[in-house]
């Protein structure tokens, strides 16, 4: 049996890491594609609902979506706007987020190889319209 060389690219397990620097206020909502759409929508609605009790009372929300979840973030924001009866305003911003993947060898022999890539993100501020 020949001695096994260093692991090839195919033998590495690709680990995707979470993006760095996540502001985590109560009013930050990170939309993903794993959670049920309705659950994420109702969470936002609860946060925006008036009254401090029961988890509501946020003056404004910031809905973040990364990559594929941009679509869902927009959808949630538009649903909030539509159900809010004209009381909500949306301000969307786009940005680029640097993501770090790590290719870890199957054994613990080699150090993980890191690779950075960029992905697009959206941040939608949902705030109450100024009373006229």
């Amino acid at each position, binding site marked *: 049996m020949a001695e096994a060389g260093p692991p090839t690219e195919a033998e590495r397990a690709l680990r995707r890491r979470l993006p*760095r620097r996540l502001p985590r206020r109560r009013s930050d909502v990170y939309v993903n594609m794993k959670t049920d759409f309705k659950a994420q929508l109702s969470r936002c609605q609860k946060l925006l609902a008036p009254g401090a009790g029961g988890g509501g009372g946020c003056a404004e929300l910031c809905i973040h979506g990364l990559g*594929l979840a941009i679509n869902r973030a927009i959808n949630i924001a538009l*649903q909030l706007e539509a159900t809010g009866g004209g009381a909500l305003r949306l301000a969307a911003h786009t940005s*680029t987020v*640097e993501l770090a993947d790590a290719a870890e060898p199957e054994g613990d022999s080699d150090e993980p190889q890191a690779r950075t890539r*960029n*992905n697009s993100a959206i941040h*939608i501020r949902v705030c109450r319209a100024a009373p006229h």
Partner: protein
Amino acid sequence: MENFRKVKTSEEESPLPFSDLPSDVVEMKVKEGSKIRNLMGFAMSKMGLEATRQIVFSGCGRAVTKTVTCVEIMKRKLGGLHQVTKVQYKTLLEVWENKDLQPDGHREHLTVHKNVPSICILLSKDPLDPNQMGYQPPDHPEDLWVDETDTLEERSGSFPKGVKRRLASPPHEEEEEQHAKKPPLQVQDHQEDLGTMAGC
């Protein structure tokens, strides 16, 4: 819907959600299958002209991510661009046809109105009204991600470790789009109007 197949999809024409645009503004309509290379080749050559002051990128449904990616690439390459982002629903009109013939030899048609999320992004070399919703000043790298210094410190212990080597400058990726596990088109039931029958 198993017996039906989609025969036509058409977008409802809607004006751009920006005021005071010149009539000859360059509009890039990003589609699901558009190649970023082709889009950016055209858009960059247009923006290279001194006479072109503004450009609009728009896309709906599964093309939204690609649209944002194009804008981000252009901002990075050119710099100093003012941006306004607008999100809205776009109405798609789909015509579905029954595979089985009806007794009288006609095929049954269904017209479906779908609301899909869409995005319109205006990039301008000239300053724009900073008070309008969705305005982003130029060269403002990551405003919403770094201004929370207090939350940063809280999380500083949990930064990803093991990032040791960096490969060459990363391309702006458009992964996952093709390999989506779930149907990514997110249309709620109550958004769909399936009842519009048009018997032809």
